[in-house]
């Protein structure tokens, strides 16, 4: 970086080789610019290093400014969709499912949404509401997206959705279903292609009630979603609940709770353990020998994400869901088949919802013939839900939450020897969520 000055007269006596060696020695003696020694010599050397360092800092700053400026160059035409999900961290696997499904949807649409070129900007919310909101702001103000979609977690959704709809942009949620947004806080610009959180446990409650089961032991993590799941379950299950046990969020070892459970001798167990909590609970439940003795019914616990990790420990467990890979309709067969071929694993409901979300957006843009400024037209088109959903028949309730069937699923060994979910029967037909009457919208 620094060059030796042209040889002074004192050096002219030395030969070329000696000069170069001197050069090298002086070079190696030079302090690396990044280190700070408090005993620096005052004077010439210090200011020179300061200059070099200052230059470096200015260069880096220029580079950063340049980066931002570069990203600020707007591409005018295409449809822009902002997709917020959790891509890093332990929940990153869900984000991967969603992102892969979005990519497949785009592929099926020929990389055009409503006939226009499309650009999808992904954001990683790290499961934090304030990061999610920052991402939404970035997508709305910097990238000027036409739609915001995605979001796994209810608390992130509650921070993001009002921001998006408040800015006049359409939000298409593809997982989180907090009851506030289905009820009092419903909005013309907010749609969800998934469900309202309570619908799934309601279906399980209904099934178990219809089966005449009683003496049920309920378990869930001690947070808002956990409590919602149990209360949704009890909305339709009127039998005797032996005990309601809430465990610490993120807990890994359930041996103590399983011992308690065995002591209470219930006839059935209902649990809600998403993510890694579910994997741990299922394995430990089976290892305790309870799987064959007390049937396990769950929601959001046994799915295409946890099955590969637990394997046969989940064999015979029941779930309720609005969708399963083996749901028989043309769109779903295409989705699951192509997904397996392209990505090499079985898609989950997180993916199916995200796939449907993109198709929904496509139907809206097509209906207004690409006039992205016509928000009212797009909303009207979305309400019609004129697209081929992976769940078959698709219609929206007044609060823009789907009215859909719910099925009983069972974890069985598939034809290939791997574990998979299979539909056993229909529990609910055209089931509406419990909060739509609080929503003031009418159409």
């Amino acid at each position, binding site marked *: 970086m620094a060059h030796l000055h042209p040889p002074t007269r004192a050096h002219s006596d030395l030969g070329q080789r000696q000069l170069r060696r001197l050069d090298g020695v002086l070079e190696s003696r030079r302090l690396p610019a990044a280190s700070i020694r408090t005993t620096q010599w005052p004077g010439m050397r210090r200011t020179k290093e300061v200059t070099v360092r200052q230059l470096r800092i200015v260069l880096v700053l220029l580079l950063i400014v340049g980066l931002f400026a570069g990203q600020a160059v707007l591409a005018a035409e295409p449809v822009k969709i902002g997709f917020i999900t959790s891509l890093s961290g332990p929940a990153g696997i869900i984000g991967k499912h969603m992102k892969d499904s979005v990519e497949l949807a785009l592929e099926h649409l020929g990389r055009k949404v409503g006939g226009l070129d499309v650009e999808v900007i992904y954001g990683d919310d790290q499961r934090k509401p304030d990061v999610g909101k920052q991402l939404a702001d970035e997508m709305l103000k910097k990238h000027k997206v036409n739609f915001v979609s995605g979001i796994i977690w209810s608390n992130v959704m509650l921070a993001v959705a009002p921001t998006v709809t408040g800015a006049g942009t359409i939000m298409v949620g593809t997982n989180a279903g907090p009851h506030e947004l289905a009820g009092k806080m419903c909005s013309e610009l907010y749609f969800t292609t998934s469900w309202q959180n309570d619908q799934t446990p309601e279906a399980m409650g209904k099934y178990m009630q219809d089966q005449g089961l009683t003496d049920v032991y309920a378990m869930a993590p001690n947070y808002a979603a956990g409590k919602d799941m149990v209360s949704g379950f009890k909305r339709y299950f009127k039998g005797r609940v032996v005990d309601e046990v809430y*465990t610490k969020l993120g807990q*890994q070892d359930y041996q103590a709770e399983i011992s308690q459970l065995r002591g209470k001798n219930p006839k059935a167990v209902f649990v809600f353990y998403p993510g890694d909590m579910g*994997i741990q609970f299922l394995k430990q439940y089976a290892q305790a020998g309870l799987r064959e003795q007390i049937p396990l019914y769950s929601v959001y616990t046994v799915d295409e994400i946890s099955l590969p990790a637990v394997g046969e420990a989940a064999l015979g467990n029941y779930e309720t869901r609005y969708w399963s890979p083996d749901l028989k309709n043309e769109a779903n067969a295409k989705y699951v088949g192509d997904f397996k071929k392209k990505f090499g694993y079985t898609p989950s409901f997180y993916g199916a919802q995200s796939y449907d979300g993109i198709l929904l957006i496509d139907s809206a843009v097509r209906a207004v013939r690409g006039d992205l400024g016509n928000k009212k037209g797009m909303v009207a088109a979305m309400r019609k839900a004129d697209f081929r959903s992976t769940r078959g028949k698709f219609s929206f309730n007044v609060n823009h939450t789907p009215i859909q069937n719910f099925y009983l699923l069972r974890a069985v060994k598939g034809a290939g020897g791997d574990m998979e979910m299979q539909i056993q029967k229909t529990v609910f037909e055209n089931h509406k969520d419990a909060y739509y009457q609080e929503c003031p919208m009418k159409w």
Partner: protein
Amino acid sequence: MNWLLVVEQCLNGLQFGVMLFLMAAGLTLVFGIMNLVNLAHGSLYMVGAYLATAAFNRTGSFLAAVAFALAATLAIGMLVEVIALRTLYERDHLDQVLATFGLILFFNEAVAIVWGRAALFTAVPRALSGHLQVLPGIPYPAYRAVIILVGLAVALLLYVVVSRTRLGMLIRAGASNRTMVGALGVNIRLLYTVVFGFGAALAALGGAMAGPIYSVLPGMGEEILIQVFVVIVIGGIGSIRGALVGAVVVGMVDTLGRAFLKPMLSTVIGPSAADNAGPALASMLIYILMAAVLFFRPQGLFPAVRS
């Protein structure tokens, strides 16, 4: 009062405590002897779990998988020590916190890059998947009994190594007065690297044993890391005995709290209030315990002697 249930829960508490001890032993060694705050200890636990699981799924032999995981993590631990941590011994604890925090981020992502973000499939080895009739009516999973045995064996081994062997003597001397030991001609740097690797291997053993019953996914070490810090603070930093006692105490308190706090509360404040208060209080229990211990005995239960 169902006494059989209480006994069973005590057994569960012991097993959970032993699990914590495997992690705590390594951490307290490194902290006590080398004065290094190693937040990445949980990451070494995770790496051990991943390696053991991958090896087990590949070879089908649990023993071989655990041995492999121990050896590989030992090597990785020593490598990390040489590359990143060696210069940090003299630095402020906070610099160590920052550096090891950076290591956590790195390991979490590295593991996700190699094995993907989905949780790995793990299962208890067939030979250990049965149950032992510890007491009439209590079928205790054999695998968990093995964990207790392994943990106690490790405790014994550590005791023997630290107090009866030359290596242990060097470790204790180095903890007491590092400079003096160096002046006497012992290669302190090599010693520290070996101790760190040893600590990493202990963490890996914890991870390898935990794999079949917990889930193996990126970031699995963080939840347990906090509990392990609580253990070593309660037990006394630098003391293996403290780690064992602290771990068993924490394991018992946590397990018994989760099992019996709600039923006990509901007799006092009614079942529906206990439904809310019980779990909240149970999750805070080990922190309350730690605060209490620190209030009366700030250096922990069995502090190691330092000069």
